[in-house]
């Protein structure tokens, strides 16, 4: 029998530079990278995590809360989440969070999830395309003291306080059952994320975080002060809450650059090594000579 209890999910998402579409404009002549030229997008597998949470809500009821740690403009992916069906979003932004590695990030996410209160599931994408580490999910689970199901591809069942899910592994797959609450990292093959709903988009397009009020006022001159914007958004439940380090109770030294045990020693741009090379004409004779050379060098034969 399937549980009738509603399931409360928290989805951890990240705004990332679109590293899949690195073009000539991004890599400059001297080999440095123009990060500004990269569009910022919703990390693809985080969309799969959001979709999984929304599907679970569709089946069991409950709520979907989406949180992100990032700069003020990361509010964009929170609005995206609202358009797709999230009930509530929170932006974790603070200069003190900057420069965090995966460990320091997981400290912030842990505190934020705990501040939200009771939850059954935490979902995140398997990995973010700007770092490809796949570490933040498990590290957050460990800090929350809950079990993890990585590479979740489908949720088979949620019943009696347990979730049954399939994990996609390189070498095959696994079906596991785990007590709630737990954390899932979701793979790209799990589902096809739903598009933004037009209705929700209409309703929530004004959603904004305090850092965005100036931009909003530029578009809506009838709001003369930030306070006026704030009052309006609060009244219509369109305010994206922002939590700072202080509000989640993060201690300095555990977050941001200072809380990051890993340090970047150096960055090299990938340069093609020039090798000693021979140009071979596409003729039977030249090819036969090349094959002879390879045989002679014991590379083949």
């Amino acid at each position, binding site marked *: 029998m399937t549980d009738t209890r509603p399931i409360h999910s928290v989805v951890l998402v990240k705004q990332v530079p679109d*590293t899949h579409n*690195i073009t000539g404009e991004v*890599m400059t002549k001297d080999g440095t*990278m123009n990060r500004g030229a990269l569009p910022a997008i919703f990390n693809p597998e985080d969309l799969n995590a959001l979709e999984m949470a929304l599907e679970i809500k569709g089946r069991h009821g409950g709520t979907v809360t989406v949180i992100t740690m990032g700069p003020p403009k990361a509010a964009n992916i929170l609005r995206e989440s609202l358009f797709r069906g999230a009930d509530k979003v929170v932006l974790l932004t603070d200069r003190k969070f900057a420069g965090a590695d*995966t*460990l320091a990030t*997981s400290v912030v996410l842990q505190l934020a999830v705990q501040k939200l209160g009771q939850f059954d599931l935490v979902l995140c994408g398997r990995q973010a*395309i*700007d770092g*490809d*580490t*796949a*570490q*933040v*999910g*498990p*590290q*957050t*689970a*460990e800090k929350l003291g809950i079990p993890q199901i*990585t*590479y979740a591809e489908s949720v088979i069942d949620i019943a009696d306080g347990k979730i049954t899910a399939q994990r996609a*592994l390189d*070498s*095959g*797959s*696994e*079906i*596991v059952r*785990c*007590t709630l609450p*737990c954390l899932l990292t979701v793979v790209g093959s799990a589902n096809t994320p739903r598009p933004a709903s037009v209705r929700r988009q209409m309703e929530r397009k004004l959603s904004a975080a305090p850092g965005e009020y100036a931009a909003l006022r530029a578009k809506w001159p009838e709001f003369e002060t930030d306070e006026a914007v704030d009052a309006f958004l609060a009244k219509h439940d369109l305010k994206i809450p922002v939590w700072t380090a202080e509000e989640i109770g993060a201690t300095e030294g555990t977050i941001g650059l200072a809380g990051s*045990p*890993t*340090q*970047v*020693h*150096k*960055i*090299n741009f*990938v340069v*093609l*090594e020039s*090798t000693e*090379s*021979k*140009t*071979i*004409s*596409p*003729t*039977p004779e030249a*090819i*036969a000579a090349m*094959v*002879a050379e390879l*045989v002679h060098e014991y*590379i*083949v*034969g």
Partner: protein
Amino acid sequence: MTEQKQIWVFIEHTDGKIADVSLELTGKARELGDQLGHEVVGLLCGYNVDALAEEVIEHGADRVLLADDPELALYRTLPYARVAIAEARVRKPEIFLIGGTPNGRDFAPRVASALRCGLTADCTDLQIGDYYVKKEGKTYKDLLYQIRPAFGGNLIATIVNPNTRPQMATVREGVMRKPAADAARKGVVEKVEPAFEPGDFALEVLSRQVRKSTVKLKDAPVIVSGGAGVGSAEEFALLRDLANLLGGEVGASRAAVDAGMIDRAHQVGQTGTTVRPRLYIAAGISGAIQHRAGMDQSSKIIAINTDPNAPMFQIAHYRIVGDVGEVLPMIIKSLRERSMDQRDAE
């Protein structure tokens, strides 16, 4: 008593067989251990896996920490992590290496989080070196350089953990050479008793399906790889013919896989298999950075491409500007003629 510092390797295994990457890392740990004067320790969790411990020693370990318990029969995050965390807290390894497999990358962050130490994902190289911090006016000696591609493979980053121990890294499969087993090597197998807590059994594995892969890219001496420039299934069949003639395997770029030309198990590159064969033939492959990341260590590279400016040509030893459909048959014909000549001569 000054104890010798340790380098740990997580020994992953399925169905009684140690993952190649764990032995590759044992070999690398041996190298680093010799350089630093550290002991190389394999951490082996499982059930009835005594025999595997010997194998780890034969590949370069001085010591194996063996946690043998029915609860450890199949990999599960929490019971495995419990053993690693408890032992690491007591023994304080300097370095801890884990294979960059799905389960390795499930295990490592859990352990690193509990130990509050730095972890670098999916390294492709490890070295030892110093790290100077200007702000502190201090040089950290003999750190582990954890070298990995970043930003979709467009950058190579060297990461260090100056202040926390162990220095943890997951390492991509196939980038380190697996050492030959030496049956004469001696080492210590030390049993450790896992101290589980009830919460460690929150997850049960109900079933496991192992896809038996018949593709043996990693160990193939020759790989004939096709990309989007291979126009048709018939042309792809030429790759197979050539691979068979050379005793090799067929590889592919992601574009060829995405086009449905060949199964994903054949993909070479950052998100596929990393290979270093004696000979790599790249047919109709442009040489995107993510593809090269998986094959640029090949001893000899032949590139066949109609575009003389294809990046693959920059790392190729033999550059053939031409059409795959014409060039491959020429290579095949030339090899067939040679083997016939040979037969005539005998």
